[in-house]
C-alpha cells in the first residue's frame, strides 16, 4: 500500500518500522473475516484492515490520537488472528503496539478510564497486591450487578465477576522438586510470572512435577516476575520495558551461570511477549543482545515437552476439547504440539468449531471491554460445549479464568492433564 511519510518522520525508528509494516499491506481484506471484533460488530473500523488504515492516517499526519481512533484500537483484542490469516505477512502486532504507545503518549483518557487502567497496572503485575485485591473483590462481589448497570462502571463489574470465589493457597506444596536422580535430561528456568501463581498455582506445580519425572531440573531465578505483557498492551511502554529488563537480568544470570536449555512459560500470553523481548529492547544498546538471547530460549511448556518424546499411553476414555489460546496459535504459531501431547497421553482430543476466534479474555480486555468480551465468551463456550467434552484444556491462565465463568465443564491447563496422565495427582477440578 502506498504510504506518505516525510523523510523527517522516518528518522523516528518506530515510525520507520511502522512504515515498512504498512507497505506490506495490500488491503486485500482477508483479515476482516477472521477478526473476532469484525465478526461480532460488522464494522470495518473494528477490523484489522480498518485499524491499520486508522493508524496509517494518524501516523502519516503526525496527529495525536483522538477519541475515535482510540475507541477502535481499544477494541482490538491483540489476538493476532489477522496475522495468521494475512497472506502478505503484515506484522500487525508491532503496528498496533506502536499505535498503543502513541495513544498513551498523545491522548488523555477520560478520568474513570485513566483510573481503571492505572489500577490494573498497579495491581495485576504484583502477586501480593493482586492476592489482596482478589480477597477484597470476594467481599465486594455483591456489588457487581450494581456496577454493571452503569456503563462507565462496567469494568468494575467485570473485575468482580472474574475474581474466583475461592483463592488457592499461596505456596503449593510441590515447589522445589528436584529432577529424578540419574536421569537428568535438561535444566530449564520456569517463569513464575504474576497473576497465574495467585489464580492457579497448581499449573506450575504440575509442570514442576511432570518435568522432574522426566529428568528435567527446574529453576526459578531470583528477581523474575511479571513479563510486562499486561502493561505493554495498555501502551505503557516504559513500564513494560522495565519488567522486560528485570526478567532479562534474572535469566541472564542463569544463562551465564550454570546454563539453561530453555525458559519455559506456562501462560502463552506471557510467552508471546517474552519471545518478543528481543524486538521490544532492540533500541536499548545495553539490553538488545541479551534480550535477543532470552527470546531465543523462550518456549511454551508444550513446545519443550514435545521435544522430550514422552511415552505413549493407553486411551483413558476422557474427551478433551482443546482451546488454543490466541497467544498460542496466532502469537506463537504453536498449533500441533499441545494436541499431540494430549493424544499421546491417552486423551481423546476434539477441536471446537471457530477455533481461531478469541474467547474474549485477552489480558485485561475482559475488564476494559466487558460487552464484546461477554459475546465472545458466549460464542466460545457454545462451540466448546458442542464437542461434548469431559474437560476443556488450554495453555493460558487468561482463557482458563474467562471460560470458567461461562461453563460448568472443568477447564484445566494442558500440563495439569499431562501431569495426571504421567503419574501425578488427579486435578481437583475433575469429578471424582
Amino acid at each position, binding site marked *: 500500500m502506498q504510504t506518505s511519510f516525510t523523510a523527517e518522520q522516518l528518522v523516528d525508528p518506530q515510525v520507520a518500522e511502522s512504515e515498512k509494516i504498512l507497505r506490506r499491506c*495490500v488491503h486485500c*481484506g482477508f483479515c476482516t473475516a477472521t477478526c473476532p471484533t469484525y465478526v461480532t460488530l460488522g464494522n470495518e473500523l473494528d477490523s484489522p484492515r480498518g485499524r491499520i488504515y486508522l493508524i496509517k492516517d494518524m501516523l502519516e499526519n503526525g496527529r495525536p490520537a483522538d477519541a475515535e481512533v482510540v475507541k477502535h484500537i481499544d477494541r482490538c483484542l491483540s489476538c493476532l488472528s489477522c496475522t495468521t490469516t494475512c497472506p502478505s505477512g503484515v506484522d500487525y502486532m508491532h503496528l498496533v503496539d506502536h499505535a498503543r504507545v502513541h495513544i498513551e503518549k498523545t491522548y488523555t483518557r477520560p478520568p474513570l478510564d485513566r483510573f481503571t487502567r492505572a489500577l490494573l497496572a498497579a495491581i495485576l503485575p504484583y502477586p501480593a497486591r493482586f492476592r489482596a485485591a482478589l480477597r477484597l473483590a470476594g467481599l465486594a462481589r455483591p456489588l457487581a450487578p450494581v456496577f454493571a448497570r452503569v456503563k462507565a462502571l462496567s469494568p468494575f463489574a467485570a473485575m468482580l465477576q472474574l475474581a474466583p470465589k475461592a483463592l488457592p493457597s499461596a505456596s503449593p506444596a510441590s515447589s522445589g522438586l528436584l529432577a529424578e536422580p540419574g536421569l537428568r535430561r535438561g535444566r530449564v528456568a520456569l517463569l513464575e510470572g504474576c497473576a497465574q501463581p495467585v489464580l492457579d498455582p497448581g499449573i506450575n506445580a504440575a509442570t514442576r512435577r511432570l518435568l522432574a519425572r522426566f529428568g528435567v531440573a527446574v529453576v526459578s531465578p531470583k528477581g523474575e516476575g511479571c513479563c510486562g505483557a499486561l502493561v505493554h498492551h495498555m501502551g505503557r511502554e516504559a513500564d513494560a520495558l522495565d519488567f522486560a529488563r528485570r526478567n532479562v537480568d534474572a535469566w541472564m544470570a542463569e544463562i551465564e551461570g550454570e546454563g539453561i536449555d530453555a525458559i519455559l512459560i506456562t501462560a502463552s500470553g506471557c510467552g508471546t511477549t517474552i519471545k518478543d523481548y528481543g524486538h521490544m529492547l532492540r533500541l536499548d544498546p545495553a539490553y538488545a543482545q541479551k534480550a535477543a538471547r532470552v527470546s531465543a530460549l523462550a518456549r511454551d511448556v508444550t513446545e519443550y515437552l514435545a521435544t522430550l518424546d514422552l511415552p505413549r499411553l493407553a486411551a483413558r476414555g476422557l474427551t478433551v476439547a482443546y482451546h488454543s489460546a490466541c497467544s498460542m496459535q496466532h502469537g506463537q504459531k504453536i498449533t500441533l504440539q499441545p494436541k499431540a501431547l494430549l493424544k499421546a497421553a491417552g486423551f481423546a482430543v476434539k477441536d471446537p468449531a471457530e477455533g481461531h476466534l478469541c474467547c474474549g479474555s485477552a489480558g485485561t480486555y475482559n475488564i476494559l471491554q466487558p460487552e464484546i468480551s461477554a459475546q465472545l465468551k458466549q460464542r466460545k463456550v457454545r462451540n466448546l460445549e458442542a464437542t461434548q467434552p469431559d474437560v476443556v484444556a488450554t495453555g493460558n491462565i487468561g482463557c482458563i479464568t474467562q471460560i470458567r465463568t461461562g461453563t460448568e465443564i472443568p477447564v484445566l491447563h494442558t500440563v495439569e492433564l499431562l501431569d495426571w496422565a504421567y503419574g501425578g495427582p488427579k486435578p481437583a477440578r475433575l469429578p471424582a
Partner: protein
Amino acid sequence: MSETIAFLKPRADVLARRSTIIADLADLLPPEGLVHEPRELVPFETDAFVSYRRLPLAVALPTSTAEVAAVLRYCHRYGIPVVPRGAGTSLCGGAIPQEDAVVIGLSRLSRILEIDPFNRTATVQAGVTNLAISDAVSPEGFFYAPDPSSQLACTIGGNIGMNSGGAHCLKYGVTTNNLLGVTLVLVDGTVIELGGKHLDAAGYDLLGLVCGSEGQLGIVTEATVRILAKPEGARPVLFGFETSEEAGACVADVIGSGIIPVAIEFMDKPAIEICEAFAKAGYPLDVGALLIVEVEGSEAEMDAMLSLIVEIARRHGVRTVRECQSATEAALIWKGRKSAFGATGRIADYICMDGTVPLSQLSHVLKRTGEIVAGFGLRVANVFHAGDGNMHPLILFNANDPVEAAKAETAGNEILKLCVDAGGCLTGEHGVGIEKRDLMRHQYSEADLAQQMAVRAAFDPQWLMNPSKVFPLEGRPAA
C-alpha cells in the same frame, strides 16, 4: 499516484447539505449503524483496488432489508448518490465511494436464514461471506460452488454484484449459474423478489440481469443459492512445465479434448515462489510453470480422468507430475493458490488484471503479456484460472513511485486491450468497476453500450447507484 481514471464531479448541492443528511440518516439507523466522523470515514475510502481513493459522505451499516430500503428511499428523494459495499475486496474498485455518496455497507447483514437440503438451497443475507455458506451447509454434505480466491472474506452480495467466479467454476459455472433468487431493494426503496428456489422463473430473467450489475440496479439484501452435494473425493495434482507456453498449450489441449476437470489453475515461476513463501504447500520450485489440476469423483473416476490428462501433459513435455498425498496437503495447495494476490504483497505492490481469452490464444497472450510488462521495465506474476482462459497477470510495482505506478496502469490497459483483440473480454469475474470503465469502448460498440445504459436508466433514471462505475463518463444519457 497521478490518477488517470476520473470520478464524477461531486454534486455541490449534496456536499452543501452534508450535516442535514447525516442528521437525517441518524434518524433512520441505530447509532452503531452510521459512520460519519471524518476520521472514521478514511478506512472506507477504498477497497482492494487501493490505487484509487475517495472519501464517502457517510457510511450506513444497516442490519435489515427495511433499513436498506429506508436509506435508499431517503437518498433517492434528495438525489444523493449511493455506493454499495460488501467486504470491500473488489480488485477493480467496485466499492470505492465518492465525496457525495452514502456507502451502504452490508457487513452487518450476516445471518444464514435457511438451509434447505431437500431443495438443495441456502438462503442467506447479503453480507454473509462466500465461504460461510459452504461452512454452514457442510455438515449436511453440501457446498456452494463458486469460490473466488477471496472467498474467506468476500460477501455473497458482492459476488452477485460482480458475478464472481473462482477456481472451481470451470466445472460448476460462475455466480449466475448458482443463483436462484434475490431480495432486491430498488433505488427508490421498493423491495422486490426475483426468482425463488426453482431453476427458472416465469417472465423476464431479471435475476440474470441483476447478477453482475455492479450495484447499479439495486441492492441485494438476501440471496437464495443452489448448494451441491460434495463429491465422493477430490484430488489436486501438480503438473510442472519448463515454460509457460508449454503449460498454456497443455491446458488448451486438455479442454480441446473435451475433458473438463473441476479446476485447472496456472502459476508461473514468480507466482509459484510467492505462494510457496506463504503457504509452504510444496510447489515445485524448479519448474517454469505449474498447473494445479483438480479431479473429483470416485477413485476410479479420478484415476481415469487423470490418466487422460497425464497423457496429454506428456505430449507437452511435462516435467513433474505430483499427486497430493493427504487432505492436509490438498488444503495447503489450495491455500497457496487462493492467497496468491495477498501473498504478492510480500514482494511488491500490484494491480491485478482479469482479461479472459479463448484457450487457443492463451500461449500467445501469455507471451505478449510478458513482453508488454517488460517493455515498461516492470515485472509480472501470472496466477489464474487457465481452464476458463481467465487470466490474472499481476503487474508488480512500487506504489510509492508515481512513475512506476503510472507505468503499471498503462501496461495493464494494454494487456486488457490485447485480451479483447485476441477475441476475449475485459473481465472474467472481477467486474468493470472503476478500473476498466474507460476500456469499455474497446470492448463494445456505441450501440452495445447505449442498450446497456438504457437498461440501467430504466432501474435508476437519476444515475444515483454506484454512478462513477462501469460506463465511460462521456456519452452517458442526461440524467
